[in-house]
């Protein structure tokens, strides 16, 4: 390694095609996980809102899933579902629950009571109230949870590289670079993964601004670490 530059640009230029493929795979793996995780979490949140007594159990399950070490879970799943996309997606989806569910529930809880009272009093049906009032007003926290989950999942996708060369997205280069003591690969894999996370985060911020022109600036500037407090 002595005398070797931190990044060998000639290697990078020679591998632009495969790198682009890995970026695509990374987005694909993260996108599926966030998408499926969001749909299941939304259902879990909806159940939790309707039946408050179930909410603690949902949280316990979501937290429980999150405590399983990702490395162990990926390895265990290979024994069952093989080195497949399914083995990669199951843990990724499970890990999104704890990021989505509490924030989606908080989003609906944050809808002001006087607004709900007015909606009921003016003759919204239950369904109309949900779709035309509660859902739009829950958007800031729902989008905040999408930011959290997408950033977290994009990072975690790299770990799926241990399932085999056909998976891992940019994680393939991190693992391959590690085995070959090749810094360029490790850095390319890591930096591009970070770049994807940042782009996804900014994309959701933009989405939120487009969806909530009605929110005062204060509400738009919600940071992830303020999510729980913002009601």
């Amino acid at each position: 390694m002595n005398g070797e530059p931190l990044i060998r640009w000639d290697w990078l230029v020679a591998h632009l095609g495969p790198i682009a493929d890995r970026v695509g795979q990374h987005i694909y793996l993260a996108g599926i996980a966030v998408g499926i995780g969001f749909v299941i979490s939304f259902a879990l949140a909806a159940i939790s809102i309707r039946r408050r007594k179930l909410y603690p159990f949902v949280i316990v399950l979501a937290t429980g899933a999150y405590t399983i070490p990702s490395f162990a879970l990926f390895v265990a799943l290979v024994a069952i579902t093989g080195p497949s996309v399914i083995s990669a997606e199951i843990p990724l989806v499970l890990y999104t629950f704890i990021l989505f569910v509490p924030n989606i529930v908080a989003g609906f809880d944050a809808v002001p009571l006087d607004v709900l009272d007015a909606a009921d009093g003016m003759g919204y049906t239950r369904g109309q109230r949900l779709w035309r009032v509660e859902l739009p007003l829950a958007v800031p926290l729902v989008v905040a949870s999408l930011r959290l989950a997408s950033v977290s999942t994009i990072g975690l996708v790299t770990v799926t590289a241990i399932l085999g060369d056909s998976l891992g997205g940019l994680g393939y280069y991190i693992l391959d670079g590690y085995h070959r003591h090749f810094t360029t690969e490790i850095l390319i894999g890591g930096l591009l993964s970070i770049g994807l996370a940042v782009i996804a985060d900014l994309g959701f911020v933009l989405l939120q601004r487009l969806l909530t022109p009605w929110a005062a600036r204060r509400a738009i500037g919600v940071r992830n670490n303020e999510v729980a407090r913002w009601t």
Partner: protein
Amino acid sequence: MSSLGPAAGETGAASRTSRAASLEFRGVTKRYGHGEQAHGAVNDLSFEVPAGAICVLVGPSGCGKTTSLKMVNRLIEPTAGEILLDGVSILTGDVTELRRRIGYVIQQVGLFPHLTVGRNVAVVPALVGWSKERQRVRADELLSLVGLDPTSYRDRYPYQLSGGERQRVGVARALAADPPLMLMDEPFAAVDPIVRERLQDEFLRLQKDLAKTILFVTHDIDEAIKMGDLIAVMEEGGRLAQFGQPDEILAHPASDFVARFVGADRGLKRLSLVTIADLKLEPVAASARGLPEFGPSTKLRDALSVLLAADSRGGVALDGEGRPRGFVTVDAIASALSEDGHGITAEGQTSAAEGDAKVTAEGGDS
């Protein structure tokens, strides 16, 4: 005057009165809990509000006034008794349809933060399926009615409004589908006293044309006296302590509770119900120059205050053109308290039926 109903072709007093409904509470009771732990929020409440009248429910907090109001649009269901709208029980029809026929204004306004002012106002028209164009025209019309310029307000969001502006939008929204009944729960309580007084005055001016039946909740007896054609004083346990016209309640509190609630200054409060124009006047003396002068709309309470402050036994009442009309004395003001029909004797108490006569309505009987 802008036409107000969805039936825009009709104009005049006839269509206006047809847009108001009478309201009757008949033995209405609401209890929470069961058996030993049951407690009454509202207890055997009965009264009638003729079409076009403002009835104020007033009382200390926890007296069940908001609960009573919310039973009218069935946000709360009564345990016993009946509420009749134009003689028909509110329980007979569809609850959503009922609510869309009743205007609803609440203290925190409850504007939808994600909708523009224009779309907030047009919420009920949108729910009942008016065309977009008709919604827009109606929203603009109502914004003008409540004193907000549609061109500068219709596309704003609620967070860009002051408290007073929000309340105006709240009133406009409640009027949107031209409801025959309006429920107003402390609608002006969240704004500062100056704005509140202006909103009250403007609302009373609006109501002269709208002639809606209004059930109005407040904890403020002064607001009740100012806004109410009829006042229902409620006490803890959700019981009706007294029902009648403001002057009657001030002149003859039915119990110690009512007397305490309306306050030791109830005599002065009665004077705020009467203006100089209603007073019998003495001829103006030649020596009246330099004395305080009062316009015809001056309230007797204010006139008395001016006379006492100026240490003057009398002042000059002016007519609408500013010409002297007569001589006002402290004694004449004091005698107004006994002269206007409710004065001294116990038999002088007006009945609720006489109270109804004031608002000349036909829908009151059912």
